[in-house]
């Protein structure tokens, strides 16, 4: 296994890294690369931000008419 990773390779591996799905030797190479490459450090940071922001996508409340229709159908089902 290669000891050195290129920046392109790091971007391809970033999800495996964040998932913890990486053989330790490759993980060492990955971290080594981050140690000396500020661009890839920035990339990883931005990737982490992206994932965290996705987790904060606000809920869109159900449209009233859809909810009313649902309640109607539910009530009809319960009557049976």
């Amino acid at each position, binding site marked *: 296994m290669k000891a050195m990773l290129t920046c*392109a390779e790091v971007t391809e591996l970033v999800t495996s890294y964040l*998932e913890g799905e990486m053989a330790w030797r490759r993980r060492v190479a990955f971290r080594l690369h981050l140690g000396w490459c500020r661009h890839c450090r920035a990339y990883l940071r931005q990737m982490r931000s992206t994932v965290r922001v996705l987790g904060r*996508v606000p*809920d869109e*409340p159900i449209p009233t008419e859809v909810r009313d229709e649902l309640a109607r159908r539910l009530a009809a089902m319960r009557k049976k």
Partner: protein
Amino acid sequence: MSQDSKRARAGDDGVLVARLIAGEASAFGELVDRYHARMVRIAMGFVADRTVAEEVVQDTWLVVMTGLEGFEGRSSLATWIYRILANRARTRAVRERRSVPFSALGGDDDDGALAGRFDEVGHWSSPPRGWEVEDPEKLCLRREAMEVLKRAMDTLPANQRLVVMLRDVEGLEADEVCNILEVTETNQRVLLHRARTRLRTVLEEHLG
């Protein structure tokens, strides 16, 4: 999702289910508000047509509500709901004869979100641009950025959108998502990777 937030959510689920079974009207509203829009987006990953997707979600709610007393809490409420949804969506997709096997929906080819950003030896030729705001806590308050992100999610290939919604928006674990979507871990990870790569690029374009 952290262990703490998983425990918190399991606690929330339990309370919500108890309130629902007790017939508390506001609990019903809370549940549908929490899940409906996401369920529609997920259903659209299977059936493509929005009207059909809405019908699938309505059907799912009926199954969920009538099956609630049988919910044992072995999985999270979200996983349980999404599993029912995925099954109904798949069945409906077959009926609509628009069904394409999930694996054939593509989305795991490299669509070149980072094309042209590296030189011949794999170094950045066009490195990541700094973002106006990088802190996710602050970023999620920026309505325009969130709109851009949502729109970008809607243009992802369907199976990438499904995976990123369930994993990153909803916070389900990898094995739960593999279960719901009936895909392998590797396939799921590739789709997640492609989706996240595209979405990071979109945010970079907006904020860089």
